[in-house]
């Protein structure tokens, strides 16, 4: 469904062009969950943003292809790209605090994709929004619908973000460290939620994280990135149990002891 081939991302907003992602390759099938791990600054977010079509075309040179159902998202027109954004490809960001518009009600924001991509009436949109708010396991969907973002907790906002991303039944959900800003219990709930959604709707998930134990629990395949390159990829268990690359070994040995116990269970 999604094929990223030899993606290179180069920044051109400084005097010397700076490449931050080299030869990124990715294949994502329907219903798959693929993880991307790697240290901070290794280019995980940049690759994700490129796939989501969010990197400005002015300051960046991107080489390679991002094929979604055969259409190259890098070279297609803005209008074609916009048709996929929000409808087929969605993304949840790391920071749930700032990702919602402070002056709009939650219900409105969650329904925005529907307003853009479908011709449903406001009542139909409301119905769908309430349903999706319930699907992401918010306690009081009707109450949340009329609230403003500052009235919600971080965990609730992240659920709202996920709801907003999923409301159009996208084929791909990109989650860029969706749980980093949340505490551990909420983190676990969100992960479980993602897994359940994946099972139920068949939405493929590209899951970016530093947290290897989470990636192991959630993902089927994993890519390990280091300094802008994919150094290793394959089945999660294979990669984590018998890492071939030096960097992956170091990454795994860097998990603190307590974590390791948890992760070996």
């Amino acid at each position: 469904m999604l094929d990223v081939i030899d993606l290179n991302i180069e920044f051109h907003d400084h005097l010397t062009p700076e490449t931050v992602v080299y030869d990124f390759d990715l294949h994502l099938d329907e219903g798959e969950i693929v993880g991307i791990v790697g240290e901070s600054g290794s280019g995980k977010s940049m690759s994700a943003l490129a796939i989501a079509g969010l990197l400005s075309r002015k300051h960046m040179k991107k080489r390679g292809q991002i094929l979604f159902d055969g259409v190259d998202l890098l070279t297609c027109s803005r209008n074609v790209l916009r048709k996929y954004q929000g409808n087929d490809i969605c993304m949840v960001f790391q920071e749930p605090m700032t990702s919602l518009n402070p002056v709009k009600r939650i219900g409105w924001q969650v329904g925005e994709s529907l307003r853009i991509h479908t011709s449903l009436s406001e009542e139909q949109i409301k119905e769908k929004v309430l349903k999706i708010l319930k699907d992401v396991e918010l306690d009081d969907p009707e109450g949340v619908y009329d609230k403003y973002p500052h009235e919600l907790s971080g965990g609730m906002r992240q659920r709202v973000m996920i709801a907003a991303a999923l409301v159009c039944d996208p084929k791909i959900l990109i989650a860029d460290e969706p749980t980093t800003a949340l505490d551990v219990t909420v983190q676990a709930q969100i992960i479980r939620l993602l897994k359940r959604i994946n099972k139920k709707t068949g939405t493929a998930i590209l899951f970016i994280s530093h947290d290897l134990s989470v990636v192991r629990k959630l993902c089927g395949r994993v890519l390990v990135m280091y300094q802008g390159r994919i150094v290793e990829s394959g089945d999660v268990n294979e990669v984590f149990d018998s890492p071939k690359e030096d960097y992956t070994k170091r990454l795994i040995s860097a998990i603190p002891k307590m974590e390791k116990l948890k992760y070996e269970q």
Partner: protein
Amino acid sequence: MKKRFMKNRRLFIGAVITGIMVLLAVAGVFFTPYDPNAMDTSAKLAGISLKHLMGCDNFGRDILSRILSGLGTTMLVALGTVFIGVFFGTIIGAFTGYYGGIPDEVLMRFNDAVLAFPSLLLALVFISVMGAGKLNVTIALGILFIPSYARIMRGEFLRCKNLDYVRSARLMGASDIRIMFVHILPNTVQVMLSTIAIGFNNAVLAEAGMSYLGIGVQPPDSSLGRMLSEAQSYLFIRPGYAVCTGTAIVLLILGFAMLSEGLEKNA
């Protein structure tokens, strides 16, 4: 919300004063004690009396009636000015701030150039080309106000365009126009309101200034600035004329200034 409104004294007083002035102006449209343009030669420069609460001017016209109707003219000109300035300023600011690049640079430098001129001088040029009168003054002042609004709105759009929620909107496939006017614009309301209030005051003053110079509102329309300039000649014989007119201008501006400061504090 109501409690906060009451606690903010400045906002409260400003709202009360402005409310009264608006009421008076509206009342002035339907009812004035006398016809504001009716001359009563027997009452030329009459002093304050029960018959004429604020006295009469040099033609024997009732000053209270003229202030009531002049208030309306002045407010209409000011509102029109603000509307033109905000409407076009917002559109220009939205596009330049959101897109940036060369058009932004060019427009903003042009803006700087316009802002560098004393605005009254530019207004003079406009008027000498288009002719005086209520409508032309409004248009001239409105156009003059566009650059400063455009600048402020540009700053707001520049600030907002890189925020996460705008990125989310883009990710949902929202078009640029939709992002600008549905997602970003409501976030600029606070700033917009307080600049509107300040702009309204500037417009009142500018209209008064132009009418004072005789290039603004033309007779038979009355305007506060025009009355003030007429009152000048009788400052020593009938100080009440200038004082009453001046007080009306001061109250109008004071109310709005307090309103805007209150709004800013409430932000």
